[in-house]
């Protein structure tokens, strides 16, 4: 009999709980992408359904675990990375997915987030970035742009936003990818890559909050302009974009530059090839930081570098020590060291 993990359909990953996001919320599309990605992950990595654990903090996005038919843990605000870390260390065979919002991961949970990345624990972090606090109804978040007018910044924010990619790579992150909620196919494709990566994979998904920050990404996500304003990066492929695939990125001095192929003497040969596996974070950092209108916004897997993972290191160290240990039980331990008879 064929193992079950070969034949899952998205339907298998739908739970019986009613999905309660606002109609039109980008979260619906992301849920679809996950339910599409998991059968593929299962097939490629031979995982059965029970192997997945979804862990979240608090926020609209953090309701996610209820909607996936596998193991789930809806935690407390900001602490999903820590909870997910505990799950993975306790049982490294599990496929652990953290679902988190920009407020959850980067404000209250900023500390845990960067330390999970730094440790390179093998979890997959889906960071839903709607640049706003949804669940608490429209306050600015650490990714809201400078000057954003929200309920708690009626005259515009006066603080500089985080760029999640910059934060991840700065914290020695080994995997960073970005997608758009509306592009379910790309999101699912990236999630499969994230699952296959050993170590902390951070996937930033630009997510529209129809209620409190509608259209935050329209300038790049809008169908009409999207191809000219985003670039989808794939390892080993040229960094070209545009409706007519005639624009590309080159390295000019120490920065990236957008050029039009066939103009100003630039040919396809000048265009950079994306090397997601390069351990040097320089170009990845530049790609992750590209912002419209100066640059296209980079989507796809920007960085994907192999390194040892925290959970493997923990397990290996325990096994290594146990191999030569004299103490094999609590009785041995209690009787070790200086003892005497009365």
């Amino acid at each position, binding site marked *: 009999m064929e193992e079950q993990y070969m034949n899952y359909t998205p339907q298998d990953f739908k*739970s019986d*709980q009613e999905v309660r996001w606002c109609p039109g919320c980008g979260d619906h599309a992301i849920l679809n992408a996950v339910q599409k990605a998991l059968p593929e992950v299962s097939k490629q990595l031979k995982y*059965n*359904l*029970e*192997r997945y*654990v*979804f*862990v979240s903090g*608090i926020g609209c996005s953090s309701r996610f*675990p*209820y909607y996936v*038919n*596998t*193991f*789930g*843990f*809806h*935690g*407390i605000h900001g*602490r999903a*990375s*820590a*909870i*997910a*870390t*505990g*799950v*993975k*260390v*306790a*049982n490294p*065979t*599990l496929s652990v997915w953290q679902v988190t919002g920009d407020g959850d991961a980067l404000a209250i949970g900023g*500390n*845990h987030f960067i*330390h999970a990345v730094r440790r390179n624990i093998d979890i997959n972090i889906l960071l839903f970035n709607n640049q706003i606090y949804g669940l608490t109804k429209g306050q600015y978040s650490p990714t809201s742009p400078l000057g954003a007018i929200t309920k708690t910044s009626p005259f515009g924010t006066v603080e500089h936003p985080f760029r999640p990619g910059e934060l991840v790579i700065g914290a020695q992150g080994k995997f960073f990818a970005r997608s758009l909620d509306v592009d379910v196919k790309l999101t699912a494709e990236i999630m499969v890559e994230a699952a296959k990566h050993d170590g902390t994979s951070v996937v930033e998904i630009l997510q529209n909050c129809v209620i409190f920050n509608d259209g935050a990404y329209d300038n790049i996500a809008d169908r009409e302009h999207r191809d000219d304003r985003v670039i989808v990066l794939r390892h080993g492929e040229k960094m070209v974009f545009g409706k007519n695939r005639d624009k590309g990125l080159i390295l000019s001095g120490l920065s990236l530059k957008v050029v039009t192929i066939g103009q100003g003497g630039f040919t396809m040969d000048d265009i950079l090839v994306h090397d997601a596996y390069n351990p040097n974070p320089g170009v990845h950092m530049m790609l992750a930081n590209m912002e419209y209108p100066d640059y296209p916004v980079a989507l796809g897997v920007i960085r994907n570098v192999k390194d040892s993972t925290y959970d493997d290191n*923990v397990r290996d*160290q*325990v096994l290594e*020590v*146990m191999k030569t*240990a*004299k*103490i*094999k*039980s*609590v*009785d041995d*331990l*209690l*009787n070790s*060291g*200086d*003892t*005497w*008879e*009365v």
Partner: protein
Amino acid sequence: MDKQKSVQELDEVVVRFSGDSGDGMQLTGTLFADASALFGNDVSTFPDYPSEIRAPQGTIGGVSGFQVHFGSRKVNTPGDFCDVLIAMNPAALKANAKWVKRGGMIIVDADQFNEKGYQRAGYKTFDAVSELNLQDYKVIFAPITNLTKESLKDSGLDNKSIIRSKNMFALGMVYYIFDRPLNFTEKFFEKKFSKKPEVVEANKKVLRDGFNYAANIHAIASTYKVKQATTLPKGKYRNINGNTATAWGLIAAAEKASLPLFCGSYPITPATEILIELAKRKDLGVKTLQAEDEIAGICTAIGAAYAGNFAVTTTSGPGLSLKSEALGLAVMTELPLVIVDVQRGGPSTGLPTKTEQSDLMQALWGRNGEAPMVVIAASTPSNCFDYAFMAGKIAMEHMTPVLLLTDGYIANGSEPWRIPSMKDYPDIKPPIVAEGTEGYMPYARDEKRLARGWAFPGKKGIAHRVGGLEKDFLKGTVSHDPTNHQRMVDIRAEKVQRVQEFIPEQQVIGDPEGDLLVIGWGGTFGHLFDAVQEMRANGKKVSLCHFNYINPMPKNVADIFGRFKKLVVCELNMGQFANHLRMNYQQFNYLQYNKVQGLPFTVVELVEKFNQILEGK
């Protein structure tokens, strides 16, 4: 040899080592305590050190002390006052003179009693003996620094290392006075400096020179003999402090449950040694995660508990405050988790290195919502092992977080411990849900304990979701139904209360009825016990009721309390346990004796208080 020297035989002696925090007094005291224990005495220790790592040298703020009480019979406390004080500088003498028994012996390093030393310690004169009123004491001015220099001048060690060895010279002197064998300490040097034979030799030499110096000077007229303890039960012994015992008790619980132990924690005084001890135990499969903060510490532990490890987190007062929100999550998700709080002086960062019992209310109530939790307290360094074990057993079998309280005094204090055998400890049988269980309901409960099943991720057929939002009574899905919330609040409380059926009845030390019942909990046991024994020896009708199970309390409490004319609750806070009793047993009148000085009780002050109460004052 000095023929006039007399040998006095004593049942028990208290020695206090004190010096600048850089003088190595904690090590000196520990070595002396270990040597005494290995020699066969019963021992109790009390490290008392400042929180500044490096307060200005020679000042009162930088004085570090280590008291050792040892005897040929059972000793229950480190002793109120010492027979012998070693003071390595004028500040140490000034800070500790009041703790010496009248007429006791004081050994000081004469070389430090110079102008600079006196000034730094804030003396008004250059005559410590008169200024501190020590005329009736045997004060021995020994030039310890210079003798150490002389002893090691050919050792090849640099000047700094030589000076650092003066504590070993002093220790050698004390070994002579109490007729202790040197071999245990020599073995320690061999092990600790195994890669530096010259350091081993130097330490041995200076220790022996200190010993010989004390033997040769006529100032030390008598030495003392404290025989091996004969009252201790037969068996194999070791020394243990509370933090190590706690760590080992947790490992023991994991072994009995056949589950891996996971500890997520963040360093904080005085709890850090538990994490350190657990980190060493990779040989027993222990996983420790030094988290980025206390919140992460407990949250990693909750994640590990969800995934099927025996999970613990360790901390002290301020860290427990940070963990509060996650404690509520553990209550809501009904996962097994042990939280160890080694109490220290508060509020806020308070007195980090000093002991107190003032986190009790936080342990019982410090959470949002109705979030009852099992709270237990250890009462001696060695029984930290048993109560850590019990915390694990209750957490796993009842599917509930358990908060274990210890305190700086028992955590750092040490005593000889008769090594138990794990076959004498009960098995731990958590309600683990089998793979493929038909009709699995995440919040269905067993009737006896009201514990829900523990379903590990990865197992087929039992996928489920938990979290901090209110749960449906059976399915565990999110429920906003008002009557469901009431039912869940009720059953979570009832579940904790049910633990009462699984803990032993409360014992009374002394007669079951009388004029005064002394009530205490946690680390004050030794002092309360000695004080009550003293009262009883004087014919007073006083008994002791000392609690380890704080919430729920044992069943027979009201029965015990009702048999005494007066009740006095003694604790190192302003009355937190007394108020807990007032809430639970309102029919009684509680007197209080409270102390919040960062110090344990003394037996003397307790006895005085009890006499006053009996006299109706």
